[in-house]
């Protein structure tokens, strides 16, 4: 199998992505876990670019690596005052049950992937994945879900403030 440029780029992003995602689980300190997650989001954005999803790659960096992870870090800094944030881990037997469950799920997914087959990818339009093309789909075919999303975000903002504030 000769390695094409796409394959090389795929592995350049995929290997650190899995490594940093594993780092989220292995990190003792939540701050290190969060930084690993930021790195994982950046590598995932690289994979998105490889999939000709340029707008989504930028959204990934702006929304996830930017907004969501800043939120996570804020909460970690807010709650962590010493070593008590190093939560004692679950009993070993429970961990093994969890690991077995995750492995079995991946096995099911493997069967589904084998069924998905593949074949040659469809030819892409010149503007595939650009702001213009995705925006046209969002504002025509998916207009109602798009507007519902704005409502959802409003509810989430108000809900977060109400839940987290000590006294309104």
């Amino acid at each position, binding site marked *: 199998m000769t390695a094409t440029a796409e394959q090389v780029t795929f592995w350049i992003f995929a290997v650190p992505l899995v490594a940093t995602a594993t780092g989220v689980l292995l990190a003792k300190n939540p701050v290190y*876990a969060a930084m690993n997650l930021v790195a994982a989001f950046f590598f995932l954005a690289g994979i998105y670019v490889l999939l000709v999803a340029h707008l989504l790659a930028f959204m990934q960096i702006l929304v996830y690596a930017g907004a969501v992870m800043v939120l996570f870090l804020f909460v970690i800094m807010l*709650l962590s005052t010493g070593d008590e944030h190093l939560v004692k881990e679950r009993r070993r037997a429970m961990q093994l049950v969890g690991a077995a469950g995750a492995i079995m799920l991946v096995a099911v997914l493997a069967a589904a*992937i084998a069924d998905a087959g593949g074949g040659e990818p469809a030819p892409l339009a010149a503007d595939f994945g650009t702001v213009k093309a995705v925006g046209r789909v969002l504002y025509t*075919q998916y207009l109602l879900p798009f507007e519902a999303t704005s409502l959802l975000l409003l509810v989430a*903002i108000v809900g977060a403030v109400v839940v987290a504030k000590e006294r309104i």
Partner: protein
Amino acid sequence: MALTYYLWLAAVLFGIGLLGVLMKRNALIVMMGVELMLNAANLTFLAFARQRGDLGGHAIAFFVIAVAAAEAAVGLAIVIAIYRTRGALNVDEVRALRE
């Protein structure tokens, strides 16, 4: 390049996220696992969008990102509220419905 590579990457990422949810007790790490699982789902949507040349997958991935942001905001607010009332970050210690 074959679709299966991306699907496998998404499956592995989803498995790692699920491991985090099932094995960790720190509520913040559990939420990071959920974020990883949502990202794996997004990767699958985009892989199929690329395969089929269909922008619908991009639209759905866009919604997933928006919903994940909302989920993170509300979820972290709940974590703060629980920490304030019970002083616990451990998801196993929060079982008020049971006791």
